């Protein structure tokens, strides 16, 4: 079976715009009008609060947020509060989970984690899971947060996934937005970044490019057709 996946990378997209884009693509996938899609992008500084609403995990007031120019969204994914910002590769896989052998929603989360774990392994980093927490960890530090929503299809059986992973790339990101929150409500563990782990600078764009084959391998996509997102450097990349 040759399932195709559309991939795009946008260097910077407002959280609200990306959320709307996700919703429209999800409904088009449901209608069978669009191929499954992987949106890769970066957000400006934003906090998002998932379905486990714990306002106490946001340590800043609305005024402080405004002052620092940080957006705040209460959204429809699983999980608690997290931070998005420049230096973090955000990936939104919008996949149709139907007809594929069984419908294993947790398996989908584990697969997302596996993509990041395999990618890090390629850089010589041993990353893993913590049984009690979703996400990817290096030692006791979280390098990639994961939070998803399964959107029940209206026009066919199954689900379309939305939201996804937030993979910290640039060193120092832990000193930025993550200071203002208790990420995912996990108090005892901090966060880290790819640059901190490999000890070298690496561009988010490069990671966006490199991670695609790891994604297609885990999820069994055979070919990738780049989407026509104008700014996408992946457009011409031949996977």
């Amino acid at each position, binding site marked *: 079976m040759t399932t195709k996946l559309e991939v795009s990378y946008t260097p910077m997209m407002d959280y609200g715009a990306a959320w709307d884009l996700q919703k429209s693509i999800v409904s088009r996938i449901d209608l069978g009008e669009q191929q499954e899609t992987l949106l890769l992008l970066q957000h400006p500084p934003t906090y998002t609060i998932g379905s486990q609403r714990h306002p106490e995990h946001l340590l800043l007031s609305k005024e402080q947020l405004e002052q620092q120019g940080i957006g705040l969204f209460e959204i429809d994914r699983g999980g608690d509060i997290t931070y998005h910002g420049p230096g973090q590769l955000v990936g939104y896989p919008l996949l149709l989970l139907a007809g594929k052998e069984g419908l294993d929603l947790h398996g989908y989360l584990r697969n997302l984690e596996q993509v990041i774990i*395999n990618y890090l*392994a390629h*850089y*010589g*980093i*041993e*990353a893993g899971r913590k049984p009690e927490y979703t996400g990817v960890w290096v*030692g006791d530090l979280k390098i990639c947060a994961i939070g998803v929503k399964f959107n029940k299809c209206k026009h066919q059986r199954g689900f379309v996934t939305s939201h996804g992973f937030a993979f910290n790339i640039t060193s120092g990101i832990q000193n930025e937005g993550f200071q203002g929150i208790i990420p995912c409500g996990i108090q005892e563990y901090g966060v880290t970044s790819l640059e901190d782990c490999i000890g070298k600078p690496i561009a988010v764009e490069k990671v966006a490019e490199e991670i695609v084959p790891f994604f297609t391998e885990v999820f069994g996509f055979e070919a990738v057709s780049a989407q026509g997102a104008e700014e996408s450097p992946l457009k011409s990349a031949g996977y």
Partner: protein
Amino acid sequence: MSNQKFTDMVMPQLAESLVSATIAKWLKQPGDKVEQYEPICEVITDKVNAEIPSTVDGIMGEWVAEEGQTVAVGEVICRIAAAGTAGAPAEERPQAEPHTTPAPVQAEASGDQSMRGRYSPAVQSLAAEHGVNLSAVQGTGMGGRITRKDVLAYIENGGGATETGRAAEAPAKREVHSPFEGLPHANPAVRPEQYIPVPPASSRQSGLHMTESPRIPAVELEDQNGRAETMIDVTPIRNAIATNMRQSVSEIPHAWTMIEVDVTNLVLLRNKLKDEFKRREGYNLTYLAFLLKAVVNAIKDYPIMNSVWAVNKIIVKRDINISLAVGTEDSVMTPVIQRADQKNIAGLAREIEELATKTRQGKLKLEDMQGGTFTVNNTGSFGSILSYPIINYPQAAILTFESIVKRPVVINDMIAVRSMANICLSLDHRILDGVICGRFLQRVKENVEGYTLDTKVY
């Protein structure tokens, strides 16, 4: 010249923990033009070289600290005449002279005096024999250098006799600037006839202020029976190694143990992967990377191996940072693989390659050397089959990986030819005992012998 404006250059705080550093080499001579940010000298700290940049434009005035001298952070190392106020470089040089060679008798300063302060061992021993203060002798050799003839002429003119009294006082005066004048006197017990080519040794016994001793120039002794002995400079790096080794051996009660591992499967695994790996990654997939992984995983199971003795406590470190002993032509460095527990075999192989290359090129930075918690030495790379390593102070243990050799081994009462290697461990017996180390080594052995053709390096 008196109205010149001089800027004092001080030893900078190169790292948080740094209290002092040793001047390895002056890159600028007194009188040389210096630009801001231009390196003026190399310093060495805990076995790392770093260049100190100038903070101003100007002309190098005088060196306050000599090569080989240890200087506390914040102390003056040299003075730089500010640009514009400085005279011509030619005028600078004599001004700097008195500090490098305090000469009571002013030379009839004719021509080049650059070698004025350099004494050969032969001259030094002759001077010691006759109690001559060399700084009082007029040199006629190249660059004002003092020859044996000069010393003999000086003695003939009665110089030696009057100097004898001064020579006796000399040891007490060793705090003064000249790096050379104290040398022969520092060791009055040594008879000139039996002049031993390591005279500063007795003044280095404390192991604390070794670098304050004068350096010995690397010059062959003119022995009457031909050249029998060679003097070798003790470089700052050798000094640092000597200090660390001495401290380790004198403070840590070492114990030693060894285990034998069957690496036949590892050899097969590596042979299967190495060409493809090299082609893909551009560097070698070494046995050491597999061994490191086995050691790191064993440390995870026995975290006490990753600890430090702190008199009334044992501090167990969370991060496993492996110091890797890397030999160069004339020294050994221990750069650190940070958080080795978070790296897979490929990642460890890359770290090994990078650190070894940096070490050989002399490009290690301070941060490459810090934070080690356990040391591994790949002694097998130079053919050793057994070694007794000294612990990398203040760690708790050091492990060596010896040569892989094919040997007949009894398995199930049959003799097989297997690839075998020894793993040796020196341990701090204040922290560790035979039982825990035996278990630890057993785990290393299991990990190494557990490699199969299916083992993944990523």
